[in-house]
């Protein structure tokens, strides 16, 4: 029997709690290495990639134009006014940062929980996190109005002798988001080093060899290096787990610390975290479904992966639905007329359409995920994910607009109307995300190769029964 046959035929007792095998059919070490490295090094770039990249770059150009207009014209060119001083920009910030959360959940929390199916999807989910945080972080800076002096919010010795106010959640946000972005990049890059070494060793051209050789830092697969690598990955996962929960908690503090009815609520941190993971899984599926079709990854990203992601999406969606029920209940139970007024106003006020769109997109339509036919069928699952992602944007928009547009005094009431520039910035940020993600797919190993090798029963003499 050749070693390739042994790699294919070795069986391992199923891990407790798993009913399906993670990979679709028997693989060997070299088939997984070749399949993933060839996407970067050998195969012709598919037409899909060029189209998606072109669309992304068009979005980047739109974004550059919109930012130029915003910096030149000032905040007056977008829809915000008093009393609705937060608009699309803050909505986009909360939406994007929430999308990132599923990537960290997959890479960190599922690693600690020993969910080996994550090995097929963690790498591109982490990349999604990084690019989502990148998009998110731009919006508060643009919202500052005078974006060029954003660094005033950082504590540093300065000639103005002023310092940031550490009792403000807006300052907490700066630290939370920058820490989240940094830790996500470190975790992603550390995990990618052995796979970049695979790309180095598989590369045929001198340029690719030098490029990946430098990026992999000279990795040589030394068993002690692997040990430190593994310890560091597990510790980073342990650190990222509370971090990811803290980030959207701090984002929700931006709202709850204000005394505004509709914002000032203790339910917000879990509400925001559940919504973040919900929208993030929708984005993971929106990325995974076309990728597996275009790059023929059906053997690695199987129906079981789609099913698991859909189940997690359904679970977090139900948590979110619970908070949707609890919000009006808390308002009614408090007996506070302002709290009750905002619930009433959300349901029938001038911006009621945002509330009902949110409920339809986030609660009603996702109930289709109870059906296994929807969960294992890429097309309907893709459509449900798009609906959820849109619904989650609408939810953040609804929370911001409806709470702000009716203040305590009727003389301060007003409505919100978005302008062209609001939409241009929003679409442009999607373009930035798509551009970054397409570059990642083209030039980096989008699936973790060494973690797939660990999935092969042949790989682990202690854990598998050898033939």
């Amino acid at each position, binding site marked *: 029997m050749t*070693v390739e046959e042994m790699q294919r035929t070795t069986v391992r007792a199923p891990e407790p709690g798993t009913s399906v095998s993670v990979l679709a059919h028997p693989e060997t*070490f*070299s088939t997984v*290495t070749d399949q993933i490295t060839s996407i970067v090094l050998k195969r012709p770039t598919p037409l899909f990639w060029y189209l998606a990249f072109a669309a992304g770059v068009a979005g980047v150009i739109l974004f550059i134009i919109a930012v130029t207009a915003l910096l030149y014209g000032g905040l007056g060119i977008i829809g915000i006014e008093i009393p609705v001083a937060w608009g699309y920009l803050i909505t986009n910030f909360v939406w994007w940062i929430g999308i990132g959360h599923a990537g960290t959940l997959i890479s960190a929390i599922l690693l600690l929980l020993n969910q080996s199916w994550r090995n097929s999807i963690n790498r591109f989910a982490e990349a999604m996190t990084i690019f989502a945080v990148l998009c998110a972080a731009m919006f508060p800076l643009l919202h500052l109005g005078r974006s060029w002096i954003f660094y005033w919010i950082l*504590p540093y010795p300065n000639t103005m002798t*002023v*310092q*940031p*106010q*550490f*009792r403000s959640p807006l*300052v*907490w946000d700066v*630290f*939370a988001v920058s*820490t989240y972005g*940094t*830790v996500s990049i*470190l975790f992603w*890059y*550390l995990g990618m080093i*052995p796979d970049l*070494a*695979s790309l*180095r*060793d*598989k590369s045929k051209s001198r340029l690719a060899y030098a490029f990946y050789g*430098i990026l992999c*830092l*000279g*990795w*040589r*697969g*030394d*068993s*002690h*290096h*692997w*040990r*430190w*690598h*593994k*310890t*560091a990955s597990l*510790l*980073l996962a342990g*650190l990222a787990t*509370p971090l990811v929960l*803290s980030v959207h908690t701090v984002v929700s*503090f931006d709202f709850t610390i204000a005394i505004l009815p509709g914002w000032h609520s203790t339910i917000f941190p879990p509400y925001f975290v559940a919504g973040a993971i919900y929208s993030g899984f929708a984005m993971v599926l929106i990325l995974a479904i076309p990728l597996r079709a275009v790059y023929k990854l059906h053997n690695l990203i199987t129906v079981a992966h789609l099913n698991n992601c859909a189940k997690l999406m359904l679970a977090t969606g139900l948590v979110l639905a619970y908070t949707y029920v609890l919000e009006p209940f808390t308002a009614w139970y408090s007996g506070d007329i302002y709290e009750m007024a905002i619930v009433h106003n959300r349901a029938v006020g001038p911006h009621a359409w945002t509330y009902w769109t949110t409920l339809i997109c986030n609660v009603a339509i996702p109930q289709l995920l109870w059906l296994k036919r929807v969960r294992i069928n890429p097309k309907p699952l893709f459509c449900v994910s798009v609906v959820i992602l849109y619904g989650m944007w609408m939810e953040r928009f609804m929370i911001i607009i409806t709470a702000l547009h009716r203040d305590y005094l009727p003389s301060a009431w007003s409505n919100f109307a978005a302008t062209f520039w609001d939409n241009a910035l929003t679409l442009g940020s999607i373009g930035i995300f798509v551009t970054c993600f397409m570059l990642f797919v083209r030039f980096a190993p989008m699936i973790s190769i*060494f*973690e797939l*090798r*660990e999935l092969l029963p*042949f*790989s*682990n*003499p*202690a854990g598998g029964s*050898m033939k």
Partner: protein
Amino acid sequence: MSAQTLYGVALEFDSPVELIEAARAVRAKGFRKVEAYLPYPIEELDEILPGSDPVPLMVLIGGILGGLTALAMEYYIAVIDYPINVGGRPLNSWPAFIPITFELTVLLAAIAAFAGSLWLAGLPLLHHPVFNLSEFDRVTDDRFFLIVEAKDPLFKDDTIRNSLWQLNALRIKEVEGS
């Protein structure tokens, strides 16, 4: 090839079981300067080829430093450097300082984990003698290598060194130094 420029002897395997058996056998012969190279981590090798793992300690120190730095910075700025009376609350309103303390704890601990694990491994490194081995490009794919280094005291003993050839390796080759 002169003896001075010899880095060691490399044994090549195509299965993790054979690598582990060979690593045990080589250790049993008394070799200490032995290193395994493989395409994914195997925990069993940590016991066979012992070494320390100071990464957790580095992360702990990084985390403690991060937390203390954050608290000290917030206390200094909010109480000494730029005190502002917010609704009569105490200047040292430490519960409000906790979110940033947490974030910086995580940040420095994470940087310690990343930088520490690479620093221990001596990476980044432009070249290493093992790359002189022409088959070594498969270590990131499907091959397993065990390299007995020439600086091991037993390496000078011809009978013991020649006994490496009795192990069940696919290929045995000398690795040139630097």
